[in-house]
């Protein structure tokens, strides 16, 4: 069965305050990096999933992202899925 490689990016919704991101932005200015307007922290989750075909892999990964990896009340998620061949090379 083909092995699909995927990455799910979870970020706080724009309306939700990110105090950890703000604290990091303040540290960036102490490092001498000025002009940083926004810094928001999210999560990247890397997965490998065996599935009979791409459509099945996609639907399982979407279900997983929406029901476990992200909480849609406060977070958005984006799914990147690679073809099995690319996944094996990576």
């Amino acid at each position, binding site marked *: 069965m083909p092995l699909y490689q995927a990455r799910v990016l979870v970020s706080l919704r724009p309306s*939700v*305050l*990110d*105090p*950890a991101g703000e*604290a990091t932005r303040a540290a960036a200015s102490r490092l001498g990096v000025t002009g940083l307007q926004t810094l928001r922290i999210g999560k990247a989750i890397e997965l490998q999933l065996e599935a009979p075909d791409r459509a099945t892999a996609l639907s399982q990964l979407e279900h997983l992202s929406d029901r*476990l990896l992200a909480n849609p*009340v406060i977070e958005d998620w984006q799914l990147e899925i690679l073809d099995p061949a690319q996944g094996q090379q990576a």
Partner: protein
Amino acid sequence: MSVGVVVFPGSNCDRDVRWALEGCLGVPTRFLWHEESDLSGLDAVVIPGGFSYGDYLRCGAIARFAPVLAAVQSFARGGGPVLGICNGFQVLTELGLLPGALTRNAKLHFLCEPTALQVLPGQCRWLQGYGAGETITLPIAHGEGRYQCDPNQLQELEQNGQIVLRYGQNPNGSMADVAGLTNAAGNVLGLMPHPERACDPVTGGIDGRRLLETVLG
């Protein structure tokens, strides 16, 4: 009369809840390990504070899938009284028994202090021992207690009188000063403050007693 106290790997207030109920109020309790699903003979269930499953991914996110919570969910839907304290409140929102989510405190600090709260009992079964608008003091101890939901949801909660506990001085940036919420039926209560730590006069105030007593009365 017996109360179930849920125990996850990482719960750390389960024994405090047992002491408050058994030691201070004389109510028998039964620990419910996260893999159990038998709630027979229980009159109420408490989901205590702590860091269930290490708070991995998000607080309460992994606990939601514990077998015991499927049983607690049916118990709550059948009208059984369920109380979620601190991490227990976070679990109730992840489980969908209460709306919204709890996020990182606005000023990032872990807050551990006594806090004045306004009680607006409404239909909440757990709070019928308090007067409307009464001010009580309970300790808080959390890093992620900033209540968040979408504006329409908040309006609905306000209209239904489901915001039953509000901070006097908002410590964490919660929307609408939310410290505790009930469901529409009033049998489920989630709150960030710790009523079980305000039951024994030896450790200070006893404002939490009526919360635990009333529903069992």
